């Protein structure tokens, strides 16, 4: 018995007196930098520790014998080291090698503003577009509050860094949209056709864009349409300007969705309430219908079809400058159809496929008629400047395109991207004036192939080389356009990017009807960007130089191309600061652009700064949202120094040397989200140009009427009304599929 008790006691004592071994050491990365919070584990046991702020660890263990000591940290490859635990302190200093991982690697943006929930530094999401004062929910108008996009009030389009509207292309899901904006009305910038809620992400590149896009000398705006919505909804929109109704149905398990919407816009009520300077004898009246169908395929693929149809007309009358007492009556009737079919799929083994096809059709019937003071057709005057103002123009444009891009990822993050696209553009027009009818037709069958690679040399350095080759059937020429972007990560949240690229574009087809024997236009971009993007803050500074090596030259009437020996340059500096964090519930951004540009193109007699560029411009955008009251207020101030305008009274030496007054507009809007019955609603009220600041976009000159000093008279080009007002109510009734799904499973 005594023996038993002694054995038991010894057994118990051995337990109590088990030796404790100290294990200590440090963890650094392979460049010697401290790694705090790294984990150390004695494999197979519970023992271990984390490194402190000096990168050191220490723990005690009762284990004995040989074990593996494992050090690990997120973003690094774990290292295991064999240790023998006896009595002495064990000391191990670890050196961990970085693992190239998606979370940590520098993001190649090639200088673009990227907005999607995945990437930090989000700039423009649908909610941003709808709540920016002054934009009236127009995508292009919101982009104008970002640096690089010039504000041009009298013409629609994206005017990027001294580039004309034709130099920027807009795509939806990779397919170029031929008529993103409503048809041109003289002196009045039109808005984009599509609602911002159609899109989940925007990539707005002010230059140096990827090789997968082409045919844009200045910039590309890439819009990504939404996938399957979260819930089924019925939507109604009401405003003195329009009425809209639509529904979106999401099927069980959110596998597919389909929807339809109809909108009727008619400005006659609005124009009675807010006097307009021009005489709208036919108030703008537009009908829009769109439909969508989306479904998920096996293996996380997505198939989407979107179709859009719009028909509308308007008539606007302005006094003629070419004769006192006469008027120009402008009539526009437009039909537009656009459909986009896209399909993306992961093919396994790191392969991804993205394909899109689209068809678009646009028909414009334009009539400009010279009328007398009683608004009756004026008889022929035999004065050419007056009589040639009467004309009819019928335009028809078809565009078919198909595109496929394949992505292959190899290694942790390196990617190879390549693909091809074909476009067929078929334009026909018929111009009628007193001399007769002048039909014209231009066809261009365009093909392109491209390849690009994302190479992550280290977690801090990424390189994106790209090459694009294009062939235009109309020009019967082909080109080669290389691109390269280098991104270097300076710190946890900041990076520097350098971009270089050659960008080619077929000259505007309108001028190639009679002779298309020209080469592609060319612009070379050199861009340097520094950006710092932390949670809630975005800071960017960008310097650029655009060398327009080849621009189109035309005859004096700007009707036929004469050569591609035009040239120009654009250089400048841009700053952007966005802060969503410092002030609670407050989101604001400030942007500034400096632009120095001159070009000799079209019928310019000398190189001059074009009308769509301003030397200094900027915006301040403020938004404040009160979550409890679901109420938001937004303010924006958009300004720029004066823009050049054409004065025919000056000789060629003074071409485009005049400047308009500086532009300034203060805009205000508020949005309120009450619950009306069972519907979620949004009430929006907006006023543009709150302080009634005088805005002059340019001057129209008479071609024959002179004033007392022998100078041709002019009239300022101003907005149709000094202030714009907007009131809208949007209601949506939803069916939350999640609850239904759970209920059906129980």
């Amino acid at each position, binding site marked *: 018995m005594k023996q038993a008790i002694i054995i038991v006691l010894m057994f118990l004592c051995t337990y109590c007196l088990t030796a404790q071994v100290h294990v200590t050491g440090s963890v650094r990365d392979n460049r010697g930098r401290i790694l705090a919070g790294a984990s150390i584990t004695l*494999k197979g046991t*519970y023992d271990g520790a984390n490194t402190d702020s000096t990168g050191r660890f220490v723990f005690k263990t009762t284990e004995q014998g040989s074990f593996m000591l494992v050090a690990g940290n997120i973003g690094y490859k774990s290292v295991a080291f064999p240790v023998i635990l006896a009595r002495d302190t064990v000391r191990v200093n670890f050196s961990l090698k970085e693992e190239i991982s998606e*979370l940590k690697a520098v993001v190649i943006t090639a200088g673009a503003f990227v907005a999607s929930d995945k990437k930090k530094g989000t700039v423009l999401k649908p909610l941003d577009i709808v709540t920016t004062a002054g934009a009236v929910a127009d995508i292009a108008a919101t982009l104008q509050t970002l640096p690089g996009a010039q504000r041009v009030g009298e013409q629609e389009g994206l005017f990027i860094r001294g580039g004309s509207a034709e130099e920027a292309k807009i795509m939806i899901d990779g397919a170029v949209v031929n008529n993103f904006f409503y048809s041109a009305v003289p002196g009045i910038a039109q808005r984009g056709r599509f609602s911002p809620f159609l899109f989940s992400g925007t990539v707005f590149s002010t230059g140096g864009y990827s090789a997968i896009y082409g045919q844009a000398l200045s910039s590309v705006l890439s819009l990504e349409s939404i996938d399957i919505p979260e819930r089924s909804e019925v939507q109604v929109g009401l405003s003195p300007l329009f009425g809209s109704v639509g529904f979106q149905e999401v099927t069980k398990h959110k596998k597919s969705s389909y929807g339809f919407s109809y909108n009727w816009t008619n400005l006659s009520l609005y124009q009675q309430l807010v006097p307009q300077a021009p005489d709208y004898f036919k108030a703008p009246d537009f009908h829009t219908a769109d439909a969508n169908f989306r479904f998920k395929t096996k293996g996380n693929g997505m198939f989407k079809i979107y179709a859009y149809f719009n028909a509308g007309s308007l008539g606007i009358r302005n006094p003629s400058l070419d004769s006192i007492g006469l008027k120009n009556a402008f009539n526009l009737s437009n039909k537009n159809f656009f459909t986009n079919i896209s399909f993306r799929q992961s093919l396994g083994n790191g392969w991804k496929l993205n394909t899109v096809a689209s068809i678009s059709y646009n028909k414009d019937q334009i009539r400009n008629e010279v009328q007398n003071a009683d608004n009756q057709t004026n008889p022929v005057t035999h004065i050419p400047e007056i009589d040639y103002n009467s004309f009819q123009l019928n335009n028809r444009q078809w565009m078919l395109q198909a595109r496929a891009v394949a992505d292959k990822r190899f290694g942790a993050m390196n990617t190879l991207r390549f693909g091809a696209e074909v476009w067929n553009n078929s334009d026909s027009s018929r111009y009628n004036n007193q001399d007769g009818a002048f039909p014209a037709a231009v066809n261009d069958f365009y093909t392109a192939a491209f390849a690009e690679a994302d190479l992550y040399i280290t977690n801090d350095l990424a390189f994106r080389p790209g090459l694009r080759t294009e062939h235009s059937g109309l020009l019967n020429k082909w080109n080669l356009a290389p691109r390269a972007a280098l991104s270097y990560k300076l710190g946890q949240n900041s990076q520097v990017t350098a971009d270089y690229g050659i960008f080619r574009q077929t000259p505007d087809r309108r001028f190639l009807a009679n002779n298309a024997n020209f080469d592609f236009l060319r612009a070379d971009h050199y861009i340097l960007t520094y950006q710092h993007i932390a949670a809630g803050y975005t800071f960017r500074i960008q310097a650029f130089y655009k060398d327009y090596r080849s621009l189109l030259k035309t005859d004096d009437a700007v009707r036929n191309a004469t050569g591609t020996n035009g040239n120009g340059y654009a250089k400048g500096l841009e700053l952007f600061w966005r802060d969503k964090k410092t002030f609670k519930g407050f989101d604001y951004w400030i942007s500034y652009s400096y632009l120095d540009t001159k070009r000799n193109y079209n019928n310019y007699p000398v190189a001059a700064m074009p009308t769509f560029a301003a030397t200094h411009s900027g915006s301040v955008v403020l938004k404040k*949202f009160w979550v409890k009251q*679901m109420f938001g207020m937004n303010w924006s101030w958009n300004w720029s120094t004066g823009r050049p305008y054409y004065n025919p009274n000056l000789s060629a030496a003074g071409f485009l040397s005049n400047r308009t007054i500086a532009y300034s507009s203060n805009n205000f809007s508020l949005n309120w989200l009450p619950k009306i019955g069972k519907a*979620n609603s949004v009430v929006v009220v907006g006023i543009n140009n709150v302080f009634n600041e005088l805005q002059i976009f340019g001057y129209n000159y008479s071609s024959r009427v002179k004033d007392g000093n022998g100078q041709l008279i002019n009239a300022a080009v101003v907005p149709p009304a000094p202030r714009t007002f907007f009131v809208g109510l949007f209601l949506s009734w939803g069916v939350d599929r999640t609850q239904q799904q759970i209920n059906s499973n129980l």
Partner: protein
Amino acid sequence: MKKLFFIAVMLVTGFANAQSRYDGAMEKGLAQLKEAKTPAEMLTVSAFFERVADAEKDKWLPFYYAARTNILGGWMDPKADKDKSAEKSKELIAKAEALEPNNAEIYCLKQQVAVQQLTVDAMSRWQTYGAVAAEAIAKAKAADPENPRPYLLEGQYQLNVPEAFGGGKAVAKKLLERSLTLFNNYKPASPFHPDWGKELAEKTLAACQ
């Protein structure tokens, strides 16, 4: 005979000791969890539970607590990168779920991670992450209807949702009262199964009055 009996006792004690190594660790970890006051302390507890989980390999509870303490550590530190912390939490939750699928407590963790990521950018994320959170609560209720924690988490969440969107004090009050009723009757399956939340429910209910 005595010797055999003696050896048997030794073996049993030895075996019992090996089993209680795990129990001892869980007890120690849960005690440290209660004591942890700073984010760094919480993350140390998380690393401890993760080591236990990696060593045991077939127990879901240490992975559960490793995830829970990682989530708490992320909440406690206002400067933490919530998305990064959520990645780690999701990793641990996945490992727990692999060992114990369709478990209400694990679904509750998923809701907490979704809410954490939602708060990073509420305006843009409330629709997607809100839906993920709602789905997790629904699955938790379906997996264990008597569990009080799904109702507690749903009540906490709805308290912060504006009335216009179906939330607010009245809605939260009903959910929290329900959770307290369930707390009074709920018996965890083991001393290490999750048993937290009653005090939190009472405190949150007080804020609804």
